[in-house]
């Protein structure tokens, strides 16, 4: 530990990598925190958790009893057992008792990405509400045509303040906080939309996953969706080195002629597989796609439009922080990793076991080590992003989980689900932990009477 600090001081290790080392060590030792308790004010299952994007300090939760609450993750409100356990009570909460409170379950609660002055809740009572955090009053509300499953705001939007809302309705609506009206209505899904995710690389790109099993990519500047992910369109490997090589060549024109790049990728891939049959079909497909895409980008009303990403409902979407990959979870108990550039299924197998099928789930990622946290029934599993192997298992909940949220500033994981608890998983064996390891509490010692 001290050695690492010294080498950072002397410049032998870059400060960045030092931090990354520390973080990765901490992340890999995540365990149920005994020192930190969130006192949950919710009386229903917690459906949504999010740490604010500006400070990484305030945790927003929305629950089935129509309540939403904000917690301070860093400052405890009180403590128990002479400071051993820090109790975090909610800073405030809005529930049914509130004059503007939601009447039914809050399915989604997200922070306004710019600051913590606003947050957005979507509920089964068909309303999306924008709340002023400081006064705990609803300032804007949007009436949706059906139950709201998921709301999302773009973390890097500089030029718009749109809330993307997936509802029971087939259309995805974008609600503009600035005007208080719907700015877009995106139609294409054939069933309700369970999950919505903004791209982390472009502020105009929106991913939606529907109950029809399709994942659609939208560019909100244009009409219609520009891509429908097909689980059968695959690429082997996350991003093969050859791709990188070729991508360098076509880097200049990468954005504009993505189809060309993909085409090349396809051929490469088919080379890899070495299957003649596959080759022919994929190349033919690719050519068809290419021509069609050129021809009818707006609309994409064709057979391709019927492609599915999952058998069943797409329950969760998560874009990686670098914006290059999209992770999706479906009611077929699969988690798929998609290359956003090519729109291909990377065929990575995540050892998920069973996943929740009826409800939207919320996944979380960490950068370094690249881990994916997925709520798998009563546990949260951490998968290696590129291996798909289970690296960590978080057992502690007694009922199925809906959501998990990774706080990258503190390297803490927050999970919650139907048992109403919000559990904190924090790095164990931390520096301070090592320091007071010696003064172990007397009550928790070995006690052999004979």
């Amino acid at each position: 530990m001290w050695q690492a600090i010294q080498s950072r001081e002397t410049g032998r290790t870059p400060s960045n990598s030092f931090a990354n080392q520390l973080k990765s060590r901490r992340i890999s030792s995540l365990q149920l925190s005994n020192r930190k308790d969130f006192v949950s004010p919710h009386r229903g299952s917690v459906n949504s958790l999010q740490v604010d994007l500006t400070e990484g300090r305030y945790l927003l939760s929305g629950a089935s009893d129509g309540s939403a609450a904000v917690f301070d993750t860093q400052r405890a409100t009180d403590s128990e057992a002479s400071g051993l356990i820090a109790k975090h009570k909610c800073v405030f909460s809005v529930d049914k008792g509130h004059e503007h409170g939601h009447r039914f379950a809050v399915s989604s609660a997200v922070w306004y990405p710019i600051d913590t002055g606003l947050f957005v809740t979507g509920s089964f009572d068909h309303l999306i509400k924008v709340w002023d955090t400081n006064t705990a009053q609803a300032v804007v509300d949007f009436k949706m045509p059906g139950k709201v499953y998921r709301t999302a705001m773009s973390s890097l939007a500089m030029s718009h303040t749109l809330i993307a809302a997936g509802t029971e309705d087939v259309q995805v609506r974008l609600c503009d906080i600035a005007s208080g009206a719907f700015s877009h209505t995106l139609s294409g899904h054939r069933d309700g939309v369970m999950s919505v995710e903004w791209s982390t690389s472009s502020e105009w790109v929106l991913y939606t996953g529907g109950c029809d099993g399709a994942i659609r990519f939208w560019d909100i500047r244009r009409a219609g969706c520009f891509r429908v992910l097909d689980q059968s369109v695959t690429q082997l490997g996350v991003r093969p080195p050859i791709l990188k090589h070729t991508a360098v060549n076509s880097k200049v024109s990468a954005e504009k002629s993505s189809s060309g790049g993909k085409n090349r990728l396809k051929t490469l891939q088919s080379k890899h597989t070495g299957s003649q049959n596959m080759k022919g079909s994929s190349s033919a497909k690719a050519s068809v796609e290419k021509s069609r895409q050129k021809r009818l980008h707006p609309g994409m009303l064709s057979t391709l439009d019927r492609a599915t990403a999952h058998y069943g409902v797409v329950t969760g979407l998560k874009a990686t922080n670098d914006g290059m990959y999209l992770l999706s979870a479906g009611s077929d108990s699969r988690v798929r990793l998609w290359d956003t550039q090519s729109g291909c299924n990377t065929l990575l197998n995540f050892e998920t076991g069973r996943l929740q099928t009826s409800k939207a789930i919320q996944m979380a990622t960490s950068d370094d080590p690249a881990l994916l946290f997925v709520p798998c029934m009563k546990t949260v599993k951490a998968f290696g992003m590129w291996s798909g192997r289970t690296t960590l298992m978080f057992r502690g909940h007694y009922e199925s989980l809906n959501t998990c949220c990774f706080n990258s500033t503190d390297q803490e994981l927050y999970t919650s689900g139907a048992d109403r608890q919000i559990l904190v998983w924090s790095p164990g064996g931390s520096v301070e932990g090592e320091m007071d390891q010696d003064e172990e509490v007397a009550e928790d010692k070995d006690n052999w009477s004979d």
Partner: protein
Amino acid sequence: MEGRDDGGGKVIGLIEKATKSSAQEVDPRLLKAIKLTLRYSDSEVRLGAKTLMELMKHNHSQVRLLTLLIIDELFMRSKLFRTLIVDKFDQLLSLSVGFRSSLPLPAPPAVATTLRTKAIEFLEKWNLSFGLHYKEIRLGFDYLKNTLKLKFPDLQATAARRQRERLEREERTKEILRSKFESLRDGFGVLKGEIEETIKEIKEGLEIVQWRGDDGVPLAILDEEDYEEIRCSHLRQIRMDSLKQSDKVEETSENRVVFDVLREQGKLLMKKHLVSVQEGISLLIRVDVSDNRTRDSMLKELIDIRNSILATEKKCEQAGFIISRMIDTGEKEEDEDDIWEEDDGKVGTDPVKKVAPLPRVQNGEGSSLQSSSEAKRSTLESSSNKASSTKTARRSGESGDPLRDKLISEAPVMNWGAQLSNWDSTTEVRANHRGLEVESHWGRVDQDAVIPADKIAELNLQATVYREERTEIPPCHAPLKKGGLCHRRDLRACPFHGPIVPRDDEGNPIINESSLEESQNQTSSSTTGISQEDDAPMDETTSDSDPNQLARQIAKQALKNIREKDREELRKIAKRAKHAKVKEHNFSVLRDAALASTSKSAVIDEEFDRVFAERKNKKQTFSLARRKKTTAKDRISERLSSNRAKGTKPKQLPQGNDDEKYRETSANHK
């Protein structure tokens, strides 16, 4: 590596052996062995935890129960074991509590129930002791308690409640002690006075006895005088002995009265006063009051009193009475007789509330505490007249107060018993829990339960059983032919010898009126002429078999018959008068009834008078009216029945009663 494997085999074997039993508990020796094995090796602990978790999955509740018991033992001891178990805590809980509907506890159900209760109990225990250090335990506990709403034994709360209850009990005990202290303080003077008086009386009584016992020479003086003269120690010793011997006074008819008094007083002193003083002392020792000085002074005084009582007792013993023995044996019969008589009066007077205040006042002045009627009595006596004999004292007391005598004569006789000691008392009594203290045997025992006075009175209510007075049925005693007397005992008549009459030793009847009345009523019908003067001696004398006897008998019978006749006549006259009276009464009643029943009563009042004056007329009119009434009623019923019967039966119903009609119609409908 090998050593670890060996150890591993050992602990696994031990655990499996321990869980194979069908007992409700783990074999303590095996358990000890397991603990011993795990104590010195972390790898053993790891292996043990793994094995135990595997065993928990066994599809039999008995195995799970035993495994859980072992887990609990180790859980409470080893930290490593705890961390290992806690990692799979939800699994452990679901396997032991069986709260998941998909994973119910396996058979047999009885053991499964035990397993579940045990698991819940352990969870609570673990949560209490280690919950702070293991979030998992807290979570599991919280989930089972708040989400699944399982019922926990709630050890902590129970303990807290017990503590609270104990405090409350102590508080209440203190309160009771304090109130007792108050009452003691209030009645302290009286008690002291009484005791002193009693002691004084005993002393006086002793003096009297000793005086008399030594032929009028006071012992003390004698002792004093002789003391100087007798130098020799040996002689003095003899002298002292003899003196002492002479102290022991013989009870004679002369000093008997004094002895009685002494005995009474001694009994009172030992039985009541000493006890109450000792109670007072223990109370003062236990009580916690602010007024310490009073308490201390009271305590001192009580101790002094006790000492003086003991000294008195000693003195008595020296004088030859042993009070305690006196209490035990003594001349009980005689004493008790007295007590009984006295008691009857007391007991009778007290409960009956109609009793005038006088006897109660008497009781009151007798003794304030009224601990026993015996005490009452003796104090009463002592206050009335201590020198004279008890009996005379009582007699005089009785005769002196006619009201009291009257009350005593009509008061019910009560049995002697403990209830007499707290007669009419209004103090609460603490409940007796003896035999109920066994933990959870008969439920919780409230140590401070008090029984209110009215309840005590109710409980002391005495039931008396009526006991028939046994009467000796006299034997027939008729002389038998074969000699001897008939020994049959019949109430009125012997089947062989006729009515039972008093007979003398040889079997001859002793004739008196009652026996003759029945037997010879018919035979001697009407013989007169014997004067009344003869009657008187005949009753008295027990008749022998002299010839005069028959004549006398006959004469007597005749006289009786005459008297009987007269009586008969008188009776007839009386009967007639009575008849007349009854008639008159009937008449008036009937008239009243008639008046009440008629609406036009005012108008026809006189007419009715007239009508009722003559019997015949009255009867006729009455019957007429009755007939009229019935016909009116019948008309309606007839019409009704004819209507009813029309459709079914053409039979014309006579004016029978309604029941018949109904029966018929109903039969038709059937």
